[in-house]
């Protein structure tokens, strides 16, 4: 009576298969199948797919220490494929390596988990350091932006309060009063922007969407811009649809977006004899575009301008804290839209606000 085929597997966890040239099982030791006699062993051991050329070699000797198959993590096996040097027969030898595999897995799992945790810690540390640098730079920028108008206010007030021989003449008073007023307005704007920026960082910047008419909003801003003293000499034009452009939006925040873009454009074109700013609405989308023929920016300068307090070279001489574009991005994000900016040196700048298409048509207003 021969050896019980299951004995090898049960005792030592070993199976062996002798194969013919077509990789069909001709002899099995240690198992009663599968794979069964005459079957293509690759159907049961897909690990052998792709290895046909290697298996045909006279000196084939393949070793794979841990192999699992299937969705439910079948028992891991070690595989050895060798040709019997005496007979030339091809043998596939398999061994159950569940125990070794469990130990190995625990080690690898611990090593990998530790490495991944360490990498996550390094990343978190770098982010914290970057945040700290940003905070320091932010405070320095805020301090700088506050000091300039405060100096004007304090100095102007001191001059206005002079008495005796140094007292201002009635003609000189309005000039200093205007400077103090302008600096106060600048400070208020800066504080408002900082509050918006801070709220957007904490997720507290909210919008109140309601049906509104984008055309009416833009039209109002265009009329206002033509009255601005700093826009004097700038040709401000608008290409608007004939009818209303209904959308769901926070009209006050859209006006803020437009005023920030307008403010940047006015600063960009200042001093040009052909200064021009164009507002456009494409009602499909809808898409709102503000273009200027200023000096434009390089890609690197644009990256700077997008960040809070970013002051690219082209805007260095301009007034402003460099918060406008950052706030535009955040407000448009809140509306589910996106800001696209096209610019290049000496080619002006075009800011496109692409609003999200409404899921349902808003009720036209006005």
């Amino acid at each position, binding site marked *: 009576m021969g050896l019980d085929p299951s004995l090898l597997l049960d005792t030592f966890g070993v199976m062996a298969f002798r194969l013919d040239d077509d990789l069909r099982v001709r002899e099995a030791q240690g198992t009663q199948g599968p794979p069964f006699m005459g079957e293509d062993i690759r159907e049961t051991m*897909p690990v052998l*797919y792709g290895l046909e050329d290697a298996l045909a070699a006279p000196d084939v000797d393949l070793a794979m*220490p841990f192999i699992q198959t299937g969705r439910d993590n079948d028992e891991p096996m070690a595989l050895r494929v060798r040709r019997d040097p005496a007979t030339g027969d091809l043998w596939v030898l398999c061994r159950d390596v569940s125990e070794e595999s469990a130990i190995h897995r625990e080690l*690898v799992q611990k090593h*990998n988990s530790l490495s991944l945790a360490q990498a996550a810690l390094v990343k978190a540390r770098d982010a914290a350091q970057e945040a700290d640098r940003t905070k320091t730079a932010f405070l320095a920028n805020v301090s700088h932006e506050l000091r300039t108008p405060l100096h004007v206010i304090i100095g102007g007030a001191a001059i206005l309060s002079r008495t005796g021989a140094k007292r201002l003449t009635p003609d000189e008073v309005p000039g200093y009063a205007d400077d103090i007023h302008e600096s106060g307005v600048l400070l208020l704007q800066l504080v408002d922007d900082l509050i918006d920026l801070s709220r957007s960082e904490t997720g507290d910047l909210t919008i109140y969407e309601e049906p509104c008419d984008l055309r009416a909003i833009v039209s109002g801003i265009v009329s206002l811009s033509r009255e601005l003293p700093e826009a004097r000499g700038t040709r401000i034009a608008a290409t608007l649809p004939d009818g209303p452009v209904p959308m769901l939006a926070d009209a006050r925040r859209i006006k803020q977006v437009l005023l920030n873009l307008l403010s940047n454009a006015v600063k960009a074109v200042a001093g040009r004899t052909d200064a021009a700013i164009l507002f456009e609405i494409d009602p499909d989308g809808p898409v709102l575009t503000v273009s200027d023929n200023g000096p434009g920016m390089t890609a690197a300068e644009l990256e700077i301008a997008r960040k809070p307090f970013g002051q690219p070279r082209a805007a260095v001489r301009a007034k402003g804290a460099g918060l406008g574009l950052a706030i535009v991005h955040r407000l448009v994000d809140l509306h589910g839209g996106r800001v696209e900016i096209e610019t290049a040196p000496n080619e002006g700048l075009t800011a496109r606000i692409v609003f999200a298409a409404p899921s349902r048509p808003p009720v036209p207003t006005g």
Partner: protein
Amino acid sequence: MSAKTYKIVVLGDFGVGKTSLIRRYVLDEFSEVYRATIGVHLYKHTDALAATALPVNLVVWDIEGAPLPSEQTRRYIVGASGALIVGDATRADPFSAMWEAADMFEDVLPGRPLCLALNKSDLGTEAHPETVNRMTRRYDCPAFGTSALTGDGVTPAFRALARSILSLGL
């Protein structure tokens, strides 16, 4: 005569999501629990690359991850028709291990197609377009942003690789 079965290997550093990508592709499932792959884990899968095309039989080899391919990895990839090279898009440097794996694969199996997968794209990717372009030009292969969590890009990446294999008549 039965249809040919193609061996595809999935390579890359550990923890980049190779197993998750395969299980999303083959089993359409995802687990948040990290379980290291030991040696290789094989998945048989039949996929129809197009509605009109015949299904293609694949054996996908999920190979134990490492920043540098080992000698054992070189032995594992013998006979592969193509490779999916996976990186973690959220890492500061997802590419070092990808270059290593791709170079090793090309060294062992020159001319066999590759496909790149920058995984975990749902977690917000670092911007690396120049490096991705450099890799796709170097290996003449496509690249996909993938998310095993959402499934985005996963099937397209595997199918692109399978199409490359079929088009080369491997």
